[in-house]
C-alpha cells in the first residue's frame, strides 16, 4: 500500500464545509472554496482556544443548570420544585428505573463525558502527543455524535409544562435551570464543532 500523504505535501487543501479538495495554487487571496464559497484554512484558526473557551462556558453553565430547579409543579400533592438530579431520583424511587437511566444518560453522563473527552483531546493536542491518535479521533467523532442528545431534558420539561395545565389536578411550569441547561448543550456543541481533529495528527516541531 502506498504511504498516506498529508494534503499540504501534495499542494492541496480541504474545504471542511463541503469536502472539496482544492489545489492550493488555485486558492485566491480571499481564500474561499471555489465550490461552496466557505472560507478555507489549513487548520481551523484558533481551534484549541475556541474549543477551550466554549468548554469552560459549558462547564460554568452546568453548575446552575444542576443547582437550580428545572420545573415547578403544583397540584393535589402540594407544590414542589425539581432539579435534574431530583427528577432522576424521583423516577428511580418510583420504580421507573428505565426512564431514570435514560434521563441520567442524556442529562448527566453525556455532558460529563463531553467535558472529560474534550478536555483530554485539548490536553493531548496541546502536548503534541502521539498517543493513540486513531482512538482519539474516534473519541472526537463520538463527542460530535452524542452531543445533541442532552437536549432531551429540555424537550421533556417543555412538553410536560405544555400538557400539565390543570389547576386543581396539577400544573407544571419551567424554571430557570432549564434555560441554563439548554445553554450548556449549545456551548458544548460549539466547543466540539470548534475542535479541529486534524490537530491530533499534526507533528509540530
Amino acid at each position: 500500500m502506498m504511504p498516506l500523504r498529508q494534503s499540504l505535501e501534495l499542494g492541496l487543501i480541504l474545504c471542511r464545509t463541503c469536502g472539496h479538495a482544492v489545489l492550493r495554487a488555485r486558492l485566491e487571496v480571499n481564500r474561499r472554496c471555489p465550490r461552496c464559497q466557505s472560507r478555507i484554512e489549513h487548520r481551523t484558526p484558533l481551534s484549541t482556544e475556541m474549543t477551550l473557551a466554549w468548554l469552560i462556558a459549558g462547564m460554568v453553565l452546568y453548575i446552575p443548570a444542576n443547582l437550580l430547579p428545572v420545573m415547578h409543579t403544583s397540584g393535589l400533592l402540594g407544590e414542589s420544585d425539581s432539579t435534574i438530579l431530583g427528577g432522576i431520583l424521583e423516577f428511580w424511587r418510583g420504580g421507573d428505573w428505565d426512564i431514570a437511566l435514560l434521563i441520567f444518560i442524556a442529562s448527566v453522563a453525556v455532558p460529563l463525558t463531553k467535558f472529560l473527552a474534550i478536555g483530554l483531546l485539548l490536553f493531548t493536542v496541546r502536548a503534541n502527543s502521539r498517543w493513540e491518535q486513531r482512538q482519539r479521533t474516534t473519541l472526537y467523532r463520538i463527542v460530535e455524535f452524542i452531543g445533541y442528545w442532552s437536549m432531551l431534558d429540555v424537550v421533556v420539561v417543555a412538553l410536560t409544562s405544555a400538557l400539565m395545565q390543570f389547576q386543581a389536578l396539577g400544573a407544571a411550569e419551567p424554571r430557570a435551570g432549564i434555560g441554563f441547561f439548554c445553554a450548556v448543550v449549545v456551548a458544548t456543541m460549539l466547543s466540539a464543532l470548534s475542535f479541529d481533529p486534524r490537530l491530533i495528527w499534526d507533528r509540530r516541531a
Partner: protein
Amino acid sequence: MSPILICRDCDAVYRAIPLNRGDVAVCRRCDAVLARHFGVDIEGALALVGAAAILFAIANLTPVLSIEVAGAQTQANVWFAVRSLQQGWISVAAMGLAFTTFVIPAAQIALLFWVLLFARCGLRPPGFAPVMRHLHRMRPWSMTEVFLLGALVAIVKLANWVPIAAGPGIWAVAALTAVLALLGRCDPASWWSIAPGVET
C-alpha cells in the same frame, strides 16, 4: 484522473474509486467516513423530501400528545412545547428548542426541495453554493429524533398520573425522523454532483 478525497479528520489524501450501492469509503488511518454511495437518485431523493414536507406539516398541525381530564383537554406538539418555555429569560431555551426542532428541520426540507427540484429539471439551482453550504452547516443542529425521544419519555413520565394519549403527530414525528435520517445517509459530498455545471 480520478477525483481526490481528503479525510476531514486526519487530512490524509486519497484517490477516489467508484463506489457500488451500499459501499462506504473509510479512512485507512483514522476510520473516518470519506465517501458513501449516493444511495438514491434525484427522483428518489425528491420523493423523500416531499414525504418529509408532508410529515413535517402533519407533525406541526396535529397534536403529538394530549391529555383529557374531566372534560378539560390539553395538547402538545413542537409549537406548544416552545410556547410553554416562553417565560422571562427561560425563553433562551424556547429559542433553542424552536431552532433545533422547527426552524432547522423546516429549512433543511425547503432548501433540499429547492436544490432537487431544479436538479430534476436539469438546471443549476439559483444560489446553489450558499444553499448547499447552509445545508452542510445545519446538519448538527437538526434534532427531530431528540424531540421524538422526549415525547416518548413524557408519555411514560405522565402516564402514572393522567390519561395521556399519543396523537397523530407522534407518528408523523417518528416517520419524519426516519425520512430525515435516510436523506442524511445520502452522502452530502455527492449532492454537489447533482446539478450540472458544478466543479466536483
